[in-house]
């Protein structure tokens, strides 16, 4: 450990959607490393420990070392020449950078999509259909006496959801913490999260919708046939017990994960759960909260929504925002081989998209912004190394409950921020195009 130590109090961890802002970091300024992250969970500790400064070139063009300026020029040329470019990712960067990324998509008439489309995108679609009763995490901490986790494994993906927000903490009307709450966990398999629950309900794979719909029926006083058990693996008695608890609690919450969205039924599953939460408000206070993944994926939803009116999968080729999941979402644009260039910011589709989509990424010019080398940066034509948000860069990040938090960086990076690179690309593309690109057939007046 070097001599030159600094302590940053109340820093924010951006690994997962919990966005905990109570990190006390001990930073070695000589080595540019975080030595200790007090209050961090196991994921947060790894996040802070592993984001030192690596010896990487500022940028690569076609695999060869380049300056940031050269790479900006190369990226701008790709984007200005593309006819159906895709801008994707954005969940692990600041809102300030996201804002510029959407501006580029608008300027060139491309598509902007975020990791939401392969995360809680279906919950976003469900939200558009039925709405949502929801709450900030502090309301759950202060009031929730019945907490139902559905289709998720927070112990491994969002550890402090349990300890900081929803299970063990004491709150204003939950003076005894864990003792004052009943915790239910619904999943297809036992996970390290299961022991945290008072009641574990194991459903058969692909039957979440049926279970949720049966619960809705029971809440509304309808009859459900005992054969539900054969279909779903859950007995009618268990469902009736859960319904009785849900109707009699004072403040109930569903915290649901990708067990619902990445599964058969997708948005129908999320919609059934959101509708169930709404139904329960006839009896008592109920809220539901999709448990969001990457640090600022919720910020991406917010930025894209306020700039365009839609949360993800937005295309600008006609000169205004259009939203159509399945048409303007990344997996589809790539699998159908429609995108002819891609700007990928702070995400790694080459590691988790379907095979056919990854294959198309190998065919088209790809630009990446990432602090680290990844399978996606490896296939990129232009790869920028950027500073890590929350560690080297300040800015705004939205917690999974839409609460915005300002980042307190720990030490400086020799690399530019995503916002700086994107701003340079935007300005260069604007110069190349002479302003925003107008779609063919745009009204003459609009062109003036």
């Amino acid at each position, binding site marked *: 450990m070097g001599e030159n130590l600094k302590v940053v*109090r*109340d820093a*924010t961890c951006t690994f997962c959607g919990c966005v905990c*802002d*109570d990190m006390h970091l001990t930073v070695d300024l000589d080595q540019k490393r975080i030595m200790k992250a007090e209050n961090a969970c196991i994921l947060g500790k790894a996040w802070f420990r592993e984001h030192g400064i690596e010896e990487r070139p500022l940028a690569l063009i076609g695999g060869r070392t380049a300056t940031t300026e050269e790479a900006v020029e190369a990226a701008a040329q790709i984007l200005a020449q593309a006819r159906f470019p895709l801008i994707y990712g954005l969940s692990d960067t600041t*809102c300030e950078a996201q*804002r510029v990324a959407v*501006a580029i998509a*608008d300027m060139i008439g491309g598509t902007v999509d975020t990791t939401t489309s392969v995360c809680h995108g279906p919950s*976003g679609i469900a*939200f*558009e259909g*039925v*709405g*949502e*009763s*929801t*709450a*900030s*995490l*502090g*309301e759950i901490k*202060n*009031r929730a006496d019945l907490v139902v986790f559905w289709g998720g494994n927070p112990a491994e993906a969002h550890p402090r959801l349990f300890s900081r927000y929803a299970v063990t903490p*004491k*709150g*204003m*009307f939950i003076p005894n913490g864990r003792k004052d709450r009943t915790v239910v966990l619904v999943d297809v398999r036992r996970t390290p999260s299961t022991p945290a629950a008072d009641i574990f309900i194991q459903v058969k794979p692909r039957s979440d919708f049926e279970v949720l719909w049966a619960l809705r029926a029971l809440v509304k006083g309808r009859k459900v046939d005992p054969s539900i058990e054969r279909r779903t693996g859950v007995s009618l008695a268990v469902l009736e017990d859960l319904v009785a608890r849900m109707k009699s609690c*004072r*403040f109930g919450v569903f915290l649901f994960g990708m067990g619902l969205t990445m599964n058969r039924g997708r948005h129908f599953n999320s919609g059934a759960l959101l509708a169930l939460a*709404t139904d329960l*408000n006839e009896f*008592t*206070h109920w*809220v539901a909260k999709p448990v969001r993944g990457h640090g600022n994926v919720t910020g991406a939803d*917010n930025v894209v*929504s*306020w*700039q*365009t*009116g*839609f949360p993800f999968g937005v295309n*600008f080729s006609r*000169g*205004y*925002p*259009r*939203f159509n999941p399945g048409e303007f979402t990344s997996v589809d644009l790539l699998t159908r081989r429609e995108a002819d260039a891609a700007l990928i910011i702070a995400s790694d589709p080459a590691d988790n998209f379907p095979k056919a989509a990854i294959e198309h990424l190998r065919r088209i010019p790809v630009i990446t912004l990432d602090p680290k080398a990844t399978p996606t940066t490896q296939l990129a034509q232009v790869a920028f190394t950027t500073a890590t948000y929350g560690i080297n860069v300040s800015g*705004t990040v939205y917690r999974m409950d*839409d*609460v*915005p938090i*300002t980042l*307190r960086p720990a030490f400086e990076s020799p690399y530019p921020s995503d916002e700086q690179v994107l701003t340079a690309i935007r300005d260069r593309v604007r110069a190349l195009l002479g*302003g*925003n690109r*107008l779609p063919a057939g745009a009204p003459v*007046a*609009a062109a*003036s």
Partner: protein
Amino acid sequence: MGSPLRIVNGRVYDPANGVNGAVQDVCVRDGKIVADVPPDAKRIDAAGMVVMPGGIDIHCHIAGPKVNLARKVQPETHQDDVQLRTRLTRSGTGGTVPSTFATGYRYATLGYTTAMEAAVTPLGARHTLEEFHDTPVLDKGFFVLVGNNLLLYRLLQEGRREELRHALAWWLKVTKAYAPKLVNPGGDEMWKGQRNANITSLDDKIGSFDLTPRRVIAAFIEAGNELGLPHPVHIHCNNLGHSGNVETTLETMRLAEGRRAHIAHIQFHSYGAAAGKSQSNPTSRARDIIEYINTHPNISADVGAVMFGPATIMTGDAPLAYMLRRFGGNKWVNADTENESGCGIVPFRYQDRVYTNALQWAIGLELLLLSEDPWRMVFSTDHPNGGSFMSYPRLIRLLMDRGYRKEQMAHVNQKALDRSALRDCQEREYSLSEIAIITRAGPARLLGLTDKGHLGVGADADVTIYEEDEDKEKMFSAPRYVIKDGELIIEDHELRADHQGRLLHVAPDYDPQIEQVIEPFFEDFYTIRFANYPVDDRYVPNGQIIPTTPSVAAAPATAGTRT
């Protein structure tokens, strides 16, 4: 800031300076109205046109967490109402909750240059400022929700009135807010903590607190007045939308006891109850409300008129939105914010054949037509709750054109008109000067914005120029020119430049000791660290602090720092 500019030959309506349609020059330089500009300055020939200060919306919902939820939940309203990008300006989408860029440009194309977002949770302040960053042209500010704040409740419950005032000042300052806002005081605690209950009278007990809405409202009016805020406490009364709520509204106004208070969207609070079997049906009590306001100069209100067609209910009054969900169809959003507020959103449509909707429409007009002091009963639709801001030109025509109004009255539910006094005020027509008061000069005065709402030397050069037209809806739909901070934003009815407006906020002093009271509460009951809560200056790249004139010192007499 634009080059110097001289507007000539226009009929000028500047009621704050007693100018009522006189043809005179208006000169602009460096973003301000000036007495003169060099002879070679650019000229705008406004012959046949009307020159007014830029419009000011005193109460609307255009940015922040609830607005973004309302955008997201209504994709169907965006698809057929789009904002095309131009070489210079960004694209967007409309509906009753437009995207940020569309909001700014569309307000500008109606001649509006300032707007106040009327309900922001303190935790959502940062989000609101981020959206403001992307809302072009307009100067903006927001009212911060404090009327369901549990720490402030605790202080009040313990009779710590001085600390309540300091804490209120702290909250205003650290969130960069413009004014304190009360929404259905006590209602959110009943909603979140008492199985979706609500407040029904000023004397209800607020959940587990030893408090009533009466005490809460009186205390905030007092604290707001002591802080000398440019705009007083902005109150959304209890019982919004309920038949018979007029008594609650009158009683709330009486609580001010001569001190300044602003009642928001008062149309929604002016209902009587029908006698007999149909007592759940509202009736109009606009006369009682207007009589009180006419005789109490300490009270001001914005009307919150209703216009037929699509709307979005979005409010910090969560139980109200839940009630309206029954009429709004299949979507409902509820969003609770820890220790601070509730929120409800319901897509909605006002229909002229529906008794209640027609009555609401009539009461909005009645209030404006019966009002004797246009400076204190100003224009709003509580956008988008009573209808979109895009319907303002039609509402202006309803006020200015009695023939048109009569024609429209023939189309609406006649039983509703029977229960209103609208037929009794058929004669009145608003003059252009009165329109300039209720949409510009009045809001500016109520907000304490001394540089806005008029065209005197030194005022902000926010100017709108309309072509005169018999059809007032057409006239106010598309000004020929709009000047913002001296820059020509709209010329020949079209956007010609982009512009970043200012953030208007207050920064009242408080005793720093109050942080010792607030911080422990954060440790226990918030999920964000106290140190991370205040909004820093990076979020207001273009901020303007409007001064306060406190009537009491910020530091208490007992403070040890005093010598």
